[in-house]
């Protein structure tokens, strides 16, 4: 799961071969913007069969690979 998300962010936002740590900030550092945010959500919903809502849409929920994993886990656990 973690590697899939990392590979998607590298391909779509960061650039191939660029290092991305599990806790590296994504929004604060400007890697992902608001359009990219929704693109990322589309990917996560399709890839991991979860449904995210407006209430999940805070930058804090998506600001690193680890935070995204935590969000997905909470959604899968809650489902």
């Amino acid at each position: 799961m973690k590697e899939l998300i990392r590979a998607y962010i590298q391909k779509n936002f960061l650039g191939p071969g660029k290092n991305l740590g599990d806790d590296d900030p994504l929004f604060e550092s400007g890697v992902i913007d608001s359009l990219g945010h929704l693109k990322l959500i589309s990917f996560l919903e399709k890839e991991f069969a979860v449904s995210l809502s407006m209430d999940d849409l805070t930058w804090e929920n998506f600001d690193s690979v680890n935070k995204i994993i935590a969000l997905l886990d909470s959604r899968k656990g809650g489902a």
Partner: protein
Amino acid sequence: MKVALFFLSALFVALVSRGHWWSALPYALLPPLWFFLQKTFSAKIKSSLAAFWAVVLIELSPLLLLKPIFSFQASLALPLGLSFFVFQAVSFTADWRKAKIKEFPSLLDYWLFLLFFPKFLCGPLERFAHFRDEVAKASWLPKGTRLLAFELLLSGLAKKFLVANYLRSLTAPYFDQAGPPSSLLEALAVTYAFAAEFYCDFSAYTDLAQGLALVAGISLVPNFRQPYLAQSTQDFWQRWHISLSMWFRDYVHYPLFFATKNLTFTVFTTFFLMGLWHGFGANYLALGVYWGIVMVVFSWIQPLRVRIASANEGRRWYSVFCWLLTFHVVLVSFFLLRDSSGFAWEKLSLLQPLGFTPFVEQSLFRLLFVLPLLFCVEMVRRKSTDKISGLQALSANKKIGLFVLLAYYSFILFFFTEEKGLTDVRFLYFQF
């Protein structure tokens, strides 16, 4: 303080409505009506989506009803500031539903939020929670931000009266009068001039609004961040009319995405509506479709852009290429936005792409005349923050140089040119 600001704002609305008193009616009648509606249904707005949408529709109705009528009736003018007034009312309701506003305000707080005179005509669009915090600590000419207020007012006046109005005298004949076919080069030159005019006009209004608000110690949200240096179209929308982009992002883009889960549809519709918000003329429809397509394509080719950017990281020519491409994509949209009469489109003849018309020679010369002033003003503004004036960061010699330059331009423009309308106080965005 609040009462004084409210009366000043009411007086301002009365002044801008003089001669057509009926246009002040929405601002006198709707805020108390909306306030009591929201107060009555404050719990329901949070718990029921239907109630929330019903209130939002009621708030949007003046704009939805009046905008089409006024768009097709050239003899009528939409009440000044109506769009911004309605957008802020909608943002209040949405923020209340999302609990971003903790405590239901008083009628005075709500009314002042909608009518606060510096931002009343063209924004920036405020959010209630931020605005209320700012009003709570308002005081006349607080010591810490006096110089910043002065700098903003000076920068706004210089951009509007020394640059924008001067450029308007060049661009207006091309866009507002019929004439013989022109060349692609002429259209490009006049659109360059318009881009400078548009930025100076609109950012001047924002500077004046922020400067005036700071006189009362109120800091309004930023609206421009050197937009013509954007490296991509997405970057441009994070630098140009930021408060409107954020409004569309939070209250159209995000809700539409979560309602449809279709990113392409969401992106296209959001930018189409942003174009259509300007009016219902053919050029505004074209503007909406143009931005919709540009942003969808931008989103589709994102992985390719990232790959190319990554391969060319650190290469100056690539940054210049991205900047030039973005700027010219924006220029096309400005041409569409400005050409409401259709005259410029009619004049554009691709048969003579490089025709050196008298306009091209004159406008390039005149652009070279006014752009150094714009550059100086922007350099000062770049050094300023929310609280600190950019003037403070300049050395004494640079400050003297800047004032000499301003005096020089004022002197030349007012005494040696025959241009009309240099003291015109109307801003381009008033029409939207």
